[in-house]
């Protein structure tokens, strides 16, 4: 029995030592980084990590366990960087053991998929109609508040079933951030978060849970990620934006929304980009972030992280659109680059100033 235990301990130590060896190497080829967090950008990130390994030899192991898990792991110091769809609030930043920098990598949009049999043209929703639907204030599709956005269109006398995400999700965070931005009542009574206390409707698990519910139930409407809706060819509503225009959710209108918010992002990169003022901006857009400790223990790793982010926000952006992510406009890339110079190790910036 003792021998068996000794064997096990030895084996564990050996494996640990082997892992430790591969982690040495000082920032260049052979460096291994671990990261965890958001599931939404995972398809792109895994492609990035693969391409970046080919290019630089730096291996990044990413666990897509969800933004909350990513933040927890960064807090516990078990990963080299985290990833989250929602930026950390001031309170949560204070809970972190070290100062944390946010790096937006790509954008996404939240779209409203619906099931209205017989409706030929895309549904158009006014700002008020969307809030009213999710608060349960309109219950039928032929209500005047919905008809207001669809002049000359016959809407059915059908009960509205609003569908939301039942699982905590960055998508919900962006969507409820938007509802809070356009409606004081919503902000006071429900608010914005990855999970909220919904006043109405039913919950489906994941994008597919929501979309499945919408496909099945005539009269339902539900929010999903733009990428998911595009891949599955769901009919999506055109939304009225802050400039009063009805905008179709596309990658271009999402990037336009990010661009319109560039000045605010330069002030604080965590500023929500929903409800952008530009006439071509889709109103429910959001960014996804990498979360990095500002001051790093290991200079080699710190350099590897900074170089990877530098690559991802420039060359890496070309991979975003084929996977239905909105790329960063140049203004926001510059915001990221300014933040990169704040990554330090032992007080010294790890990237040579540009």
């Amino acid at each position, binding site marked *: 029995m003792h021998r068996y235990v000794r064997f096990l301990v030895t084996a564990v130590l050996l494996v640990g030592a082997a892992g430790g060896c591969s982690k040495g190497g000082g920032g260049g080829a052979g460096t291994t980084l671990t990261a965890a967090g958001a599931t939404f950008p995972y398809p792109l990130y895994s492609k990035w990590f693969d391409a970046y390994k080919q290019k630089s030899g730096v291996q990044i192991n990413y666990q897509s366990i969800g933004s909350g898990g990513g933040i927890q792991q960064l807090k516990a110091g078990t990963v080299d960087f985290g990833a989250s769809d929602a930026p950390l609030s001031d309170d949560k930043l204070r809970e972190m053991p070290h100062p944390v920098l946010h790096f937006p990598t790509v954008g996404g949009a939240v779209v409203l998929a619906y099931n209205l049999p017989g409706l030929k043209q895309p549904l158009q929703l006014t700002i008020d109609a969307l809030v009213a639907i999710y608060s349960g204030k309109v219950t039928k599709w032929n209500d005047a508040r919905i008809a207001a956005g669809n002049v000359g269109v016959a809407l059915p006398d059908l009960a509205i079933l609003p569908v939301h995400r039942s699982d*905590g999700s960055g998508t919900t965070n962006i969507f409820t951030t938007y509802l809070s931005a356009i409606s004081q009542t919503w902000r006071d009574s429900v608010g914005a978060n990855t999970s909220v*206390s919904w006043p109405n409707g039913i919950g489906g698990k994941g994008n597919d849970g929501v979309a499945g519910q919408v496909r099945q139930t005539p009269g339902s409407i539900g929010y999903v990620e733009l990428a998911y809706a595009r891949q599955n060819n769901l009919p999506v509503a055109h939304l009225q934006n802050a400039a009063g225009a009805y905008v179709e959710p596309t990658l271009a209108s999402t990037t336009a929304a990010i661009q319109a918010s560039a000045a605010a992002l330069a002030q604080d990169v965590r500023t929500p980009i929903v409800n952008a003022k530009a006439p071509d901006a889709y109103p429910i857009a959001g960014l996804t972030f990498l979360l990095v400790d500002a001051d790093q223990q290991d200079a080699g790793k710190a350099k590897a992280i900074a170089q990877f982010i530098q690559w991802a926000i420039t060359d890496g952006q070309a991979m975003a659109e084929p996977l239905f992510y909105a790329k960063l406009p140049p203004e926001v890339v510059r915001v990221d680059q300014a933040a990169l110079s704040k990554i330090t190790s032992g007080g010294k910036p790890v990237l040579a100033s540009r």
Partner: protein
Amino acid sequence: MSRSATRAAPGTGPPGPVVAGPLARRRGLALDPIYKALLQAAAATVFLVVALIVFEVARGSWLSIKTIGWSFLVQSQWDPVADHYGALPYVYGTLVSSLLALVLAVPLGIGSAVFLAELASHRVGSIVSFVMELLAAIPSIVYGIWGFFVLAPWLRSTLEPWLIANWGAIPLFRGTPFGIGMLNAGIVLAIMILPTIVSISREVLLATPRTLREASLALGATRAEAIGVTLDAAKPGILGAVILALGRALGETMAVTMVIGNSNRISASLLSPAATMSSVIANEFAEATGDLYLSALIQIALVLFAVTIVVNALARALVYLTTGGRRDVGAAA
């Protein structure tokens, strides 16, 4: 040859029949303590795991217990935005969906068990038992998909409109037919727990003494009356089966999450969406940020754990009662 001579040390194990010769016995005696230690270690592991789970869950929920206290169980507002947590909608959802499952599955299950134990020919019995085992072996996600894609459209288009039209006066059947909600969850759970009820009830019925049946028939009872007498004798055991089934229904996560509609509002109507303790954990754990939020979710796990322990203890006690402590039936449960 006396029994006590074969024991390694007084009081270390139950006496058993001795068949080995003197030489084999000596070798056996040398290995006995090792063998025993190994088995004890294996048994201790189980306790250790349970103790660790309780400890970890209690530790994780400590912040929530300290901050929210008992009102956690009676508050109905679950609001991560306001950092305010009350688990009542989930406790309610778990209990009601499980009770609904029992209401649907118990009559079916006991009826089926009586048929299998008392009336069925060997061939029919083995076929039905096989189908039951098949039901028990289907992964819960498959039930969930079936509930979502097959049961929900039927409920929405057929059963629920009928319930609303004919029974809408009762609050239980008010609302809009969405197909997804408490009723769907209850039906899916009923199908999932049916095998447990049938197989254990059948075992318990078969374990009742034949003399009971023979005596009642001899006294002029009809077949149905004889079955009634047997059922009466097997009642606590069947109750045990039902409570074990309830245990499964209480903890079921995946299938329920897919069909219950995941709403944290308490509604009297079975047609409304609801949520259970296990479904809210599955839904919200991955993206829960904030210490109190995480802690509150872990506390739900603690509550669920407590409910499960109580239910299992109850089942054990009942099965013990019905069989007078006979090990064969107790083990079947």
